């Protein structure tokens, strides 16, 4: 079985991938199908109907069109942020873990600083000075999000650095760059994949949060701006749940799918993680007796 086949055999990963494929497709071709989401098509705050599946917003735009078009706006930024965070984190993490010494000390201090500083206020400080838009959001999210990835990858690089095959490569005279690129990084593939997923998850949440704060380009349709308008128009007091429920459910579905995929990847990349389930499946038993020890008791004692 190929690696992909094995991954697809994991039910969690399969479900996650299917949901992601659905939203990915929506982001790619959806906006072509629904027309301009900013058009004023009907009376404001119409409940869902055959003409407008998800109803209309407080300004009379079609909520379904906005949800579909928002997928592109949000997922494109999240994907870009995830990729950049991964590259930056891998660079800092491997350099720190591989070279060690004062390089590691310095980079480690930087990473710990960025981990401690709360992301949202820092993001707001930076974004407030820049023109609102996807570029600003991307930059800000990379600045506030790279440290976690760097930390995880550094720990892994540090342990790989001590592996025999890395020492062998170094003794045989390979350059540092080659050792990092061809010995260390390929052995971290599962970690890189899960870091990427974690970074994308973070990016979606933080992007939506920043846009909800009003730091996004309010002319641009995305899931965050949808929620911004939903909360700033009279959606809640007027009982128009349809203005914010579809977008929230879409965000949660994508987040949940990413979590499922990550979980599946984990089990796939690390079979030791759940040895009990593998044991139960192999033996066909329903439960595993966890405590294999027989208590040795005097008669006066009772087992509680």
């Amino acid at each position, binding site marked *: 079985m190929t690696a992909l086949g094995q991954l697809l055999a994991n039910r969690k990963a399969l479900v996650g991938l299917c949901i992601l494929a659905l939203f990915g497709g929506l982001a790619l071709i959806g906006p072509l199908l629904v027309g301009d989401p900013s058009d004023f098509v009907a009376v404001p705050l119409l409940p869902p109907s055959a003409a407008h599946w998800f109803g209309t917003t407080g300004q009379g735009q079609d909520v379904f069109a906005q949800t579909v078009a928002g997928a592109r706006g949000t997922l494109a930024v999240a994907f870009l942020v995830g990729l950049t965070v991964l590259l930056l984190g891998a660079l800092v993490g491997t350099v720190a873990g591989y070279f060690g010494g004062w390089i590691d000390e310095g980079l480690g201090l930087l990473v710990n600083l960025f981990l401690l500083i709360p992301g949202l206020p820092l993001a707001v400080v930076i974004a407030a000075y820049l023109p609102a838009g996807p570029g600003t959001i991307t930059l800000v999210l990379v600045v506030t999000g790279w440290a976690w990835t760097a930390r995880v990858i550094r720990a892994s690089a540090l342990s790989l650095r001590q592996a025999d095959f890395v020492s062998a490569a170094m003794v045989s005279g390979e350059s540092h760059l080659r050792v990092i690129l061809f010995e260390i990084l390929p052995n971290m593939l599962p970690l890189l994949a899960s870091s990427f997923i974690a970074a994308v998850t973070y990016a979606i949440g933080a992007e939506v949060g920043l846009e909800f704060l*009003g730091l996004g380009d309010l002319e641009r349709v995305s899931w965050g701006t949808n929620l911004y308008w939903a909360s700033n128009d009279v959606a809640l007091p007027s009982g128009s749940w349809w203005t914010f429920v579809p977008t929230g459910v879409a965000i949660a579905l994508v987040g949940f799918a990413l979590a499922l995929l990550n979980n599946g990847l984990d089990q796939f990349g690390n079979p030791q993680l759940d040895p009990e389930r593998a044991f139960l499946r192999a033996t066909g038993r329903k439960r595993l007796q966890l405590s294999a020890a027989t208590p040795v008791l005097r008669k006066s004692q009772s087992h509680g």
Partner: protein
Amino acid sequence: MRFLLRRLGFYLVAAWASITLAFFIPRLMPGDPASAMFARFRGRLSPEAIVALRRAFGFSEAPLWKQYAQYLAHAARGDLGISISYYPATVGSVIGQALIWTVLLSGVAVLISFVLGTALGMLGAWKRGGWLDSYLPPVLTLLGAFPYFWLAMAALFIFGFGLGWSPLRQAYDDRLVPSLSWAFLASVVQHAVLPGATIVIATAGGWMLSMRSTMINVLSQDYVLFAHAKGLSSRRIMLQYAARNALLPNVAGFGMALGFVLSGSLLTEIVFSYPGQGYLLFRAVKSLDYPLIQGLFLTTTLAVLGANWLVDVVALWLDPRSRS
């Protein structure tokens, strides 16, 4: 003790770094944000106030290092300038009023969520495959996938507007005068329950999952098996042998995650118009109140650093190895 001092040193470096970041960020930006910022003040502040504000931020003709020294001196005195949107109040006093609400709401909610999530994770791992272990984690993972503030919107919609069980905004009934009376305290609690509950629901899943996985790890250790063999009560094994050891990495993770959780709860405040740091941040972004944004960044960061130091103290108390 040496450990705590070393950590304290690190937090001081972190505090200095964030103050420095706040100084350099406006100066690194393209264009001239300083002038743009002061242009916004024109007509709203007196010229003397603008000069004072420029000095507080260190924007002057002086060379950069002098500006920086000036800014540091002001920051050390707690002088963060004057707020534009709350003119003529100083940033310090505006934030001071809001900080207490955030500490109250987020602090209590985060603590409840951590204790609750950790307890659930402990019980889930102890009774593996039980209903708690099978049904709760997926539900909490799904809930955790929603943005905090979206859960807050849904909760406000259902329990506030729909059922009328909860007040809709603010931290207390504005017909009451803040005092230590029962009526006022009851009103504060009443207003905090719904936002607090959404923060707990959004975050408890994370604590539960991490506690569950460390706990499972610890349960397979030989000393747990030995404790079983000795015939200790399962309650004692669970709490004093397994949970106490499993708690350590979780407490360390708690400090790490604090900034992230706080960011989420700031957004929750906006939904409930809860007069804390988050709501202030929202107002500041709307009116591009740069001094206030910077002040909020600094106070939030310092609060997180302080909380992390407390977490270090707790971790030290939990782990005798690090005390020697």
